[in-house]
């Protein structure tokens, strides 16, 4: 490797320009909306096998968009958590929940008030707005 070319390419300006000019990730199979789809293809004794798997994952009622793939051994891999792969998609989602706490932050359930207190609070609020 040419050290001069290496040094030239290593400048922040050159690296930043390179990164800013990279094409959209959509064309690499990531970033699509909707359920995650992965396609396995294999040849066997002259036969063409195509297995299309769709993962429509919901956590707490919300669909989760995941960049994932399933290889020919059946192992599930998510590029968001690149050093893991799983035999079980359920185990994968559990690990994702543990590693991305902000993305799965539990929404606080509204506190159920008693009828009298609730009416009082509502009236007080209206009064305050006047």
């Amino acid at each position, binding site marked *: *490797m*040419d*050290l001069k*070319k*290496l*040094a030239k*390419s*290593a400048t*922040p*300006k*050159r*690296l*930043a*320009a*390179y*990164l*800013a000019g*990279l094409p959209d*990730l959509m*064309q*690499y*199979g*990531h*970033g699509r909306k909707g359920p995650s789809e*992965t*396609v*396995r*293809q294999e040849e066997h004794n002259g036969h063409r096998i195509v297995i299309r798997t769709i993962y429509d994952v919901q956590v707490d009622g919300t669909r*989760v*968009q*995941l*960049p*994932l*793939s*399933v*290889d*020919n*051994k059946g*192992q599930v*891999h998510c*590029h*968001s*958590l*690149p*050093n*893991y*792969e799983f035999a079980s998609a359920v185990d994968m989602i559990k690990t*994702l929940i543990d*590693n*991305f706490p*902000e*993305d*799965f932050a539990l929404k606080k359930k509204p506190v159920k008030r008693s009828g009298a207190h609730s009416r009082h609070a509502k009236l007080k609020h209206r009064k305050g707005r006047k």
Partner: protein
Amino acid sequence: MAVTRKNIVTDTAVRDKFIQGVKLLKQETSGRTTTDFGISGPKQPVSTYDLFVVWHHRAMMTLTPPGNSAGRNAAHRGPVFCPWHRVMLLLLEQNLQRVLSDSTFGLPYWDWSADGDLPVSQQPTAPIWTTSYLGGEGNPVSTGPFAFHTTDPTSWRVRIAGNVSGNLISVNRGLRRTFAPSSFPSLPKTSHVKNALLLNPYDSSPWDAGTSGFRNRLEGWASEPTFAPPWLHNLVHVWIGGDMAPSTSPNDPVFYLNHCNVDRVWEKWLRTHGRVYVPNMTASTSLKGHRIDDPIVSPLGSNATPRQVLDVSTIYSYDTLP
């Protein structure tokens, strides 16, 4: 003149320079903002250090070929794993030399297998995690040179993170580490590295995370028969956890110490088995980006291919090999 890469645990001078260097790169603005890279969230300047975070993430999300079910991407889960990271480390090393004004500086490595030989209970308190080195675990990390201080904007901050959907987002928070998850309580051991070094060839068809060659054992998708993956490189990421887990793992400076050791293991393999690489250019075009003369996904374009980084002895060497 070639620089020498040394063990960060045994060489305090190189340790101090590494810490100083990455902090300088973190404070150096690249002239770009998060919006230039399509990163959602509050617009903020992107440091030179964080350019490497973006680069790693983008390579990770670039499937080769597009949409392949094996999850092979421009830097992982395929043969180019070792060459791609060698180029990444070279570019970081060049930047460290520049900000340190020291052309003799060599990126240090962390021999995690030495810590893996310790009893499990001692691994989280090994010297590398003490305050003089990288600090310990936490959310945020609160000890050592990369500790988070709310009122000090120059303290180490994660500015670009990946979310669960694989998108980059603009953030402003401290570094996270959660050592030794219950499923993976130990780092890899010296014997695991030695056994990996016996494997030949470098890689084999179908060139993904299911092969039995050296690359796949080192990357960590394949383990020794009585164990389950993750192994070696992957296990180090998983064991450290926190910001070492997502595609933005270069947010933690220990990323470079891990990969420098991975590169050191590869260098030992090259010395033992010959400076060879597969697949060659007769392999299918579906392996574009992983063949010996394909450009590595980097700013060097065609000036960096796997073949061109098989012998880097004019640029650097290691003080000792495993």
